[in-house]
Structures are given as structure tokens and as C-alpha cells.
């Protein structure tokens, strides 16, 4: 598969602060590519440089063979952009938001009449077509923003934190919609600080922190590489966690002490829990779960994704 987005040594600085510090990436046509990292890691900055609304300070960047810094309008004609903060036009009606946005691409009104109907069906907003945008729920606004971003039939859809602030059901509806777009051949580039979103949506991702790539690969390969298969979570009460951890040596491959709990990384979590109790330790609560990208991030940075 050819790369549709290529970056080498991509950099962006704001005065003394380096927001993006030498990122390399290749996004292939038709894949769903993720940038996972905490707030302030440089994900949105990277997205804006790809979208040609922010100039880079160093490195190479091409989108579909074009330089977004020099050929911004041409690059943006190929893209659909879903920003972190909804910026729908609240002075227009729901359907008008799609139609008027399509005009910015020079699309004809005849096309936009049909297309807006299809996109409203896609976003499950047919019944709201003539409503004011302010009357929509958060999930509906997000779906409308995505529908608006599809009006020019983009080859690449950039989604910055697509489900932040949505309830679980709204998130699942959105993931379903995005999955269908990917199936139909649209390349997705997604930033998120939710590990479950990254696992649901992304074929491949980079883990970003302080503007640098910490690791990359598919969600499952990252978990295999940087974590054990299972994790045993133990809570002894916040006062005791630190003192108990010394007695857990050798139970799993390694331990991680968080303020509220201890994570024991083990291939067999149940067996590890038996070993803990056989040592005469009785946690207040215990939980065995599969390892996730959260564990990968913790391993790589020593910090949690969501503070």
C-alpha cells in the first residue's frame, strides 16, 4: 500500500516550548491510523500541520504527494477535518451546515442537495435537517461535524479526539460510522487519549508523549511487546500499597505502584492472585484483566494517559 501521509523529523515549536519534536510517520491508504497520547502530547499540533492550517518549523511532510505548508488549499481539498472542538455554524440550520460547507469546495448546489440528504442519513439526523444546530445533543453535533467533513468525498479523514465528551452509547454509534467509512476505503487519522478508542478504531498507531514517538505498531503488537498478557490489580488501601509492594516480588514479571492500586504484570493473573493470598496478603479488592494500551503507555512513560 502506498503512503498517503509521510512525515520525517516533523517539528513545531512555540517559543521555548517544543510541541512536536521530530515525529516520523507513514500513513497508508485505507488504513486507520492513530495518535495516542495524553493531552498536550502534540497530537493536535501534528494534525493541524497535516491539515495545512499550521506551518511546521522543521522536517519533511507530504500529504498525497503535496506539501501542506506550501499547498495548503490543494491539500485541504482532499481532506475531511473533524476538529476537537465542534465549530458548526450555529446561525445556520443543520442541513445548511453541510450545504454551505460544500460550497467552500466549489461544489454545485444540485450535487449538495442530494449529498446533504445522504450525509444526514449517514449521521442519523434526517429528522433534524431543518432544526437549529443549538438544539442538537453533543453526539448529534459530532456526527454532523463528521458528515460535514465528508461533503467533498475526502480521501483522508482527520479526526481530533472524535468521542471526547460523549456518553458510551454515542461513542459506539460514532465508532460504527467511522468503521464503515474505513471499510469503504477512506483513510482515517485519529488522535485520542482513550485507549479503548485506539483499540477499537486503529489498525496501527503511534504512542506520543512530549512531542516524541514512544512506540508504534498495532494495538495488539504493542501490548505484546510492552506488557504481559494479563494484569492483576490489587488495592490494599492507599496507605498500605507502598509498603506491601516489597512482599510481592516474584509474583509477576514486574509491579507498578499507582496512588490507589498496585498493578502486577503476569501471564496468568488468577495464578498470581493465588500466590498473593498464599503469601498471607489480603487485598481489599482484586481484579484480573487483559492488558491494554493504558499499560503500554504506563510502561513507556511512567504515567497514566488520563490524569
Amino acid at each position: 500500500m502506498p503512503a498517503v501521509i509521510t512525515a520525517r523529523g516533523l517539528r513545531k515549536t512555540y517559543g521555548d516550548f517544543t510541541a512536536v519534536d521530530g515525529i516520523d510517520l507513514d500513513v497508508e491508504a485505507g488504513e486507520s491510523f492513530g495518535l495516542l497520547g495524553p493531552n498536550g502530547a502534540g497530537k493536535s499540533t501534528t494534525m493541524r500541520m497535516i491539515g495545512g492550517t499550521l506551518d511546521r518549523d522543521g522536517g519533511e511532510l507530504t500529504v498525497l504527494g503535496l506539501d501542506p505548508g506550501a499547498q495548503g488549499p490543494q491539500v485541504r481539498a482532499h481532506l475531511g477535518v473533524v476538529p476537537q472542538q465542534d465549530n458548526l455554524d450555529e446561525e445556520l440550520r443543520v442541513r445548511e451546515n453541510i450545504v454551505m460547507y460544500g460550497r467552500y469546495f466549489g461544489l454545485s448546489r444540485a450535487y449538495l442537495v442530494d449529498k446533504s440528504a445522504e450525509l444526514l442519513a449517514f449521521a442519523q439526523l434526517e429528522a433534524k435537517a431543518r432544526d437549529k444546530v443549538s438544539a442538537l445533543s453533543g453526539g448529534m453535533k459530532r456526527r454532523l461535524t463528521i458528515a460535514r467533513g465528508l461533503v467533498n468525498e475526502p480521501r483522508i479523514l482527520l479526526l481530533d479526539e472524535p468521542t471526547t465528551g460523549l456518553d458510551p452509547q454515542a461513542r459506539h454509534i460514532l465508532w460504527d460510522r467511522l468503521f464503515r467509512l474505513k471499510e469503504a476505503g477512506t483513510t482515517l487519522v485519529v488522535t485520542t487519549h482513550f485507549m479503548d478508542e485506539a483499540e477499537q478504531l486503529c489498525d496501527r498507531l503511534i504512542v506520543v508523549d512530549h512531542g516524541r514517538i514512544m512506540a508504534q505498531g498495532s494495538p495488539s503488537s504493542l501490548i505484546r511487546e510492552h506488557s504481559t498478557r494479563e494484569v492483576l490489580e490489587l488495592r490494599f488501601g492507599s496507605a498500605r500499597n507502598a509498603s506491601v509492594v516489597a512482599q510481592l516480588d516474584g509474583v509477576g514479571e514486574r509491579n507498578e505502584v499507582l496512588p490507589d492500586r498496585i498493578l502486577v504484570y503476569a501471564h496468568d493473573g488468577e495464578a498470581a492472585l493465588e500466590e498473593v493470598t498464599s503469601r498471607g496478603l489480603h487485598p481489599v479488592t482484586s481484579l484480573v484483566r487483559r492488558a491494554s494500551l493504558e499499560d503500554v503507555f504506563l510502561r513507556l512513560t511512567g504515567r497514566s494517559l488520563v490524569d
Partner: protein
Amino acid sequence: MTELSHGTGSDEPGSAATRTGAQEFDAAGLVASGRVPPHTEMAARTRRSGSWFYAETTLRGMRAFALPIAVYAVLQPLLYMVALGVGLGELVDRGTGPVDGVDYLTFVAPALLVSTVVMSVTAEMTYPVMSGFKWQRLYYGPAASPLEPGQIARGHLLAVVLRFVLQGGVFWVIMMAFGAAPSGFWQSALVVPIGVLTATAFGTPLQAYASTIEDEAYQFAFIQRFVVMPMFLFAGTFFPLSAMPVWLHWIGWVSPVWHGTQLARVASYGADVPPVMIAVHLVFLLACTVGGVVWATRSYTRRLHS
């Protein structure tokens, strides 16, 4: 995935769609219908006509305020004509006689047209600009499309100008109805483009300035009170600049309102202005407009692309 979207768990997407009322869609047709031009062609169209595309949105947004805008456009000239023509005008005409060789209403009417559109442009190029960047963030959506920030700035301006063509046109018709535009149909009609040009001469620098404001907008009230009102009162609207002491004449010279008013008087009653001064007035207004557009383009680019 079908289960999640329809919530029925049916194996047949079609029947599930029917039951829940959700219309099934064709994802492949959605992302590649074959009905759109190539993306390079879209970029080329936007490069050519992007300002107009954005103006369409601004005009569409104005539709919600169409009635107040229309009432304002008709009522304000009527009130001015009655108050200053029939009221104050009678007094002036009986007291001092003709002003600049014509009755007071004829003297003041073209100036009021110019001042009215300048006041409107003050409203259109302050808070709505702030809203575009800050309150409603209306500019950021289009900034992610092929539109360039300068096209967004000029598109917003273009929509406002179209409104002023209408507003100035109504004012002119009312002037004609009151017999306050004696130079005849075609010559006096020029007050409309002159009014619009004056509005852009003041409006585009204001738009650029408004686009530099990041925080609160108390500056706008200041501009209203200490820039727009003095221009209205002292820049030759109600009495000729020459009626003021020489050391106050600069207020007229730096005011787009005075330059526009002088031109509008030439158009509406053939005021005696030397050709060289007509050229000076025109150049002043054009220079302010062009300078403002250049400044606004830079400032919009800095705000939207950084």
C-alpha cells in the same frame, strides 16, 4: 456493528432499518459517488471564487435578521428626513438661508446616507468578527476547507457590502421621494456606491483591528463613542467643515466620512468641489479600503493559521 447502529440485532440490515426507521446508507457511494469533480478541480474553483463562497454563508446567516435589517434600512432614513428636513431644516432655511447653495435637507441628506452606512459597518465589522474568532468560532470551520484566511476576511466583507448596496439604495430612493437629490436620477444614484466605498474605507481597517483582539471587546464601545460619533458630528455632516475653526479641520481630513460626504454631495446636488479634490477624496477612500483589506488578510492568516 449493525447491532450497535440499529439496536435490533437482526441479521438483515434492511429489515432492521425498516423497523427502527433509520435509513440504510451506501457507504461506498458516500465516500466515492463519482459525482464530485477531482479534488484538484475543487481547489481551483475555491482559489477563483472562495471569497464569494464564504460570502454566501454570511448572507445566509443574515437571513435570520432580515426583518430587523430591512426595517432599519427604511425607518432610519425616514426619521432623518422628517426630523432634519421638515423640522430642523425649516429652522435653518428661515434663519441662515441656503447652506452650500441648497436648502438644508438637500445639504444634509447625502451626508446622512454616508454616516448611516458607516455606522452599520461599525456594527458589522466589530462584534461579528470577534464572534468568528472567539465566541462562535465561525471562521475555524471554513479555515479547514480549501478557503484561505484572506478569502474568509474578504468574503465576510463582500456580504456586508451587498447589504450596504441595498441599505444605500433604499436611502437614496427616500432622498428622491423627499426631493433631496436634485441632480437627477443617474448622477444622484452615485451616492449608493460612494456610501458603500466610504463604508469599506472605514470598515476594512476596523475589521483588521477587530481580528487582532484576543480577549474582551471593550475596545468596540470606545470606537463607537470616540471615533464614530465624533466623525458623525464634526466631519462635515451637519455643517460644512469650513464652519469650524481651522484647528478642528483635521477631524474631517482623517475621516472617511468627510471624504465620502463631499463626494456624495457632488453626486446628489452637484456641490462645487474642484476636480482635484474629487480625486483626493476618491484616492483616500480607495487607499483606506485597500490598506484595510491587506491588513485584514495578514491578521486573519495569523489568527487562523497559527
